[in-house]
């Protein structure tokens, strides 16, 4: 036991003696949460639009006002001629153009179903779709107000509520993702680097010749990184709740316990990588390629898994982050308890046990 703590102490000293890495490790979650929370956002505000109004009557005027006062759109240019559209997209960088046909008002009240043309800049398809959806909704609402539902003999009205994230804040989406990435980064990448460093420096030779059991070397090595991972977790949660007012609706204890489980999964991955490579640089590259990319791309954090081609969907099943993100979202946003996320938890537990078993086996007692 004494040797074990000596090892933990030594490892902690390594981390503390390298303040630059420590600052990066602790600063990264802050930077990522702030970045994702403020800068990288899926919400659209003040998108630049152009309006070509061939009627110029009170109805088209009102619809234009509705659009520009919604907060989603900002009138960049009012066009006089339809052939100015191209220039508006190219030169004035508008994202959406609204074209009213002539005699709009007359046709509107004559039940002649006049058409409004919405033209979006689809170089960014997601933005284009969102803008069209917003604009359509505003126009439809105007129509209903004017004519009342009685005017349409058969109609279905939809009433939409965005549960768990009423205001559609994208930070709610990103925080679980950032937690996942940071825990994976600190636990897997840093452990694989720390273990490989012993090999590269030649100190592993002495450790192996010493009476230390491999399990002491490995566990002693990873304990400080578990602490570091939990510290990161705390930083992210504090930022998310204090700055972005994100709720933790479920049990905080469950959230931390699940995080510890995911940290264990990541650590086991890191140990496995380190047992197969000889230099820190290779460990870093492999961690980034094999762990970070799937964690970011295949976990459902950025791209919805349902939209992926089936081979990628299949691969995503073995990405631990996929299950962990479901758990974090469930606990934080839906207030889910273990009864709800037991399946994902069980999958993670099995993965972790398999990985720990494999990483202990892969730890070499000799140099080759």
């Amino acid at each position, binding site marked *: 036991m*004494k040797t074990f703590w000596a090892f933990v102490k030594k490892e902690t000293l*390594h981390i503390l*003696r390298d303040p630059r890495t420590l600052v990066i490790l602790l600063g990264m979650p802050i930077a990522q949460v702030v970045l994702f929370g403020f800068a990288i956002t899926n919400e659209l505000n003040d998108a630049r639009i152009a309006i070509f109004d061939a009627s110029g009557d009170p109805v088209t005027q009102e619809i234009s006002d509705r659009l520009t006062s919604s907060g989603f759109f900002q009138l960049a240019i009012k066009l006089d001629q339809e052939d100015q559209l191209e220039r508006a997209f190219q030169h004035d960088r508008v994202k959406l153009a609204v074209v009213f046909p002539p005699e709009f008002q007359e046709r509107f009240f004559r039940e002649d179903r006049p058409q409004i043309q919405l033209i979006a800049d689809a170089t960014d398809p997601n933005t284009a779709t969102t803008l069209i959806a917003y604009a359509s909704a505003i126009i439809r609402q105007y129509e209903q107000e004017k004519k009342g539902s009685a005017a349409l003999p058969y109609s279905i009205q939809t009433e939409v509520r965005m549960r768990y994230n009423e205001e559609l804040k994208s930070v709610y989406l990103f925080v679980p993702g950032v937690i996942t990435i940071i825990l994976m980064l600190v636990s897997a990448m840093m452990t694989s680097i720390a273990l490989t460093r012993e090999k590269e420096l*030649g*100190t592993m030779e002495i450790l*192996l010749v*010493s009476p230390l059991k491999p399990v002491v070397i490995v566990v002693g090595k990873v304990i400080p990184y578990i602490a570091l991972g939990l510290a990161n977790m705390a930083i992210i949660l504090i930022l998310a709740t204090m700055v972005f007012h994100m709720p933790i609706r479920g049990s905080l204890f469950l959230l931390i316990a699940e995080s510890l489980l995911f940290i264990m999964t990541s650590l086991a991955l890191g140990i496995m990588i380190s047992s197969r490579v000889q230099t820190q640089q290779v460990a870093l590259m492999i961690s980034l390629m094999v762990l970070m990319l799937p964690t970011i791309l295949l976990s459902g954090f950025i791209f919805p898994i349902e939209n992926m081609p089936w081979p990628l969907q299949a691969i995503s099943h073995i990405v631990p982050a996929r299950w962990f993100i479901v758990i974090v979202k469930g606990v934080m946003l839906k207030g889910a308890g273990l009864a709800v996320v037991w399946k994902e938890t069980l999958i993670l537990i099995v993965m972790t046990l398999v990985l720990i078993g494999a990483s202990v086996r892969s730890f070499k007692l*000799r140099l080759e």
Partner: protein
Amino acid sequence: MSITISHITKSYGAVKALDDISFDVSKGELFGLIGPDGAGKTTLIRILTTLLVPDAGEARMLDLDPVKEFRKLRPHIGYMPGRFSLYQDLTVLENLNFFATIFGTTIEENYDLIKDIYSQIEPFKHRKAGQLSGGMKQKLALSCAMVHEPDVLILDEPTTGVDAVSRKEFWEMLARLKERGITILVSTPYMDEASLCDRVALIQDGHILQVDTPASIVASYNRQLLGIKARNTLRLIEDLRAYPLTHSAFPFGESVHLALAGDLTDGELPEYLHQKGHEELEIEPIAPNIEDCFMELMTKKQSDK
């Protein structure tokens, strides 16, 4: 016997690092494993320290098998790897404490054993190991290897990259450790360090050339040896190698050591060299050293092939 090595062979792919190596080291002996870089010294040491498994042959360390009984053996070995293998970002004291603890002991318990070495670096005990000079690093590494009172001390090129004064000090420390009855196996590429060992094994290309005391190895040298200097050493070697009576000619510092294949009549060699246009010639008979013996054994081995 502290160490018994019999018929050990080890290959890395197609390269035979060790080929049928056998020798013994007695208890309390200071044994030198001497050979150039790439001779197989580190591989052999790693087999003895349980870090590698030989392809064939077997070794006994303190009557234990480094392959099967490595767990029992490891606590009794003091090992200093070839590179400086301590934690550069930890202080001298932290390093020593760490290695003492993982071997289940304390500095205080074995202070007496390492006092001689450690006291020299103790004034810098709060300095980070990475900031020590080469000589001090070696002393720290030796202290760390000795702190658990091992029965066998195995050092892989401890004096490589260390200045001449520190090298001398280091060998004096080894001599004092030997007096305490510790068996020491030390490898080195420096031939001049051979005379500081009780016995040496000369190793080259994975083969043992000879195992004996330094004195016997030198005594077994049976050729006439001349030390020759001239202004142009490079051309001197070429000309000497072309000389009919030459057995071998190797550069040795500023001069060339010429081993003769037969008897030489007076004045014959100076005349030959003058003819070749060499100036500032100095020719004198010299006594062989270990390196001459090594070269002789090496040449013999090559001509045997």
